[in-house]
């Protein structure tokens, strides 16, 4: 079962027929497992990774460290939710260390991100402080590397 998800994680477009051959299980069983996983939210979504900068679509990204005051009963979760519901927030993590939340924010330009920080994030009641790091270059994301020249096949066409 795990192998089916590993294949889909590598290639969301792999068909049940292809997967069934690769894992040596009947198509119907593969389909059933996938359907069930979608229902149980084990498979959350089928996504495509796009190298936007290549299209000249330069979104600006920032990694923001947020220190917050936890609340009685709900800890960090309630304030985290208030923050991650903003559509500007692309990813959000509770982390150990000198700050509490690490959030990845996306904007059209620097202005958009700074207004998000100054007008929406920083004024929240339980947010003590923020430190904003603008991303300069993406090297690797979700296991995929960027900025590398596409690997050409270095193998000789026929070898013993």
């Amino acid at each position, binding site marked *: 079962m795990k192998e089916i998800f590993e294949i889909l994680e590598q290639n969301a477009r792999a068909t049940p027929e*292809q997967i069934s051959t690769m894992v040596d299980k009947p198509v119907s069983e593969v389909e059933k497992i996938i359907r069930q996983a979608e229902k149980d939210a084990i498979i959350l979504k089928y996504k495509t990774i796009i190298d936007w900068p290549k299209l000249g679509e330069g979104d600006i990204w920032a990694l923001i460290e947020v220190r917050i005051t936890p609340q009685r009963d709900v800890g960090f979760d309630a304030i985290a939710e208030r923050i991650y519901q903003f559509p500007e927030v692309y990813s959000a993590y509770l982390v150990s260390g000198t700050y509490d939340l690490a959030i990845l924010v996306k904007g059209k330009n620097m202005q958009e991100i700074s207004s998000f920080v100054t007008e929406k994030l920083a004024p929240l009641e339980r947010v003590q402080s923020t430190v904003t790091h603008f991303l300069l270059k993406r090297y690797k994301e979700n296991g995929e590397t960027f900025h590398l020249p596409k690997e050409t096949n270095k193998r000789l066409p*026929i*070898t013993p």
Partner: protein
Amino acid sequence: MLNTKSTTTEAWDSLISQKVDSLPPSGIRKFFDLLSSMEDVISLGIGEPDFVTPWHIREAGTYSLEKGYTMYTSNSGMLELRQELANYLELRYGVSYHPEHEILITVGSSEGLDLAMRAIINPGDEVIIPDPYYVAYPANTILAGGVPISTPTSEENNFVIKATDIEARITKQTKAILIGYPANPTGAVMSKSESSAIAELAKKYNLLVISDEIYARLVYGVEHICFPSLPEMKERTILISGFSKSHAMTGWRIGYVAADRRFIQALTKIHQYTMLCAPTMAQMAAIEALRNGDSEVEKMVQEYNRRRRLMVKRLHEIGLPCFEPKGAFYAFPSIKATGMNSEDFAEKLLIEEKVAVVPGPAFGPCGEGFVRCCYATSLSDIEEALRRMDRFVRKNKLNTK
């Protein structure tokens, strides 16, 4: 000084040793020129992994250069590496070798094979080799002054050599049996009972066994039988292996031989006069491969297995029946249904559909009627190649009717 007038082909030929001159060139390279002049070819003719060496191993190689490990090592190879290998062979296959006297680090398993042949063969000694064979087996035997005695294997026996066929070919001159399972080009593996039968013969006729186990880690759903791990076989087996296929390290040229110290001493003698030692950088990388490489090997094996299933199933659907290969990364389908011989099939397929496969006879006469398709290539390439082969087979089946 040579007279310029005498530089005819004949004159030059006489300058080349007869043994080398009579050696046929490797049939595998026949399409090489044709192929390199074409574009958009999908090659299933490659005999190496498509993975790049795992990063942690490459990093260890780079680090060794940075630290200045640029000198010779001992002839036998770094003791640290031999110790790791001794542990590995003991843990994985339960056969123990003394790291100081029973293991030699070589420049790929190819060097190991050459050394083994040269160390044991007297002029005229015969070496029994299953056909189809890896291209270097007969050539190495001949170069060492021996006589290769090829022994046919067939699809009915899953391309595994039968003890009775070996026994029928044993003469006073027979010195050794050379086996390589999992096999290139067939993907065949040898079961415990088949191996034991050969072991019995080796004992009965006092023969050596040279076991090339370079593909040992690439087996699917079966257990690899390490030949020297069979009872009483360690002392009469020369085990040859390396890192090329298991750790995707073909270009590093690093392998090893493990055997009784009498053999290792003899092999080391040749090695010290011809190679001195295996590349130091590659030895450092191999240490890292043995210490921390297992999970990467398993990942690659799992990936090969998916591709293997896909290729074998599609070959059957296309109408090119293929026995199930349980090792290495080759499928060896029969192309007899097309009415063509292997060479015509491969050449036409390349010209018409731009898919390269290797005709079976490149690996010996028993390869006629088969082609070798390597599945160490991306899933999308395998699918596209098989689509093209499907079209090709359908077209050519009609032609023959």
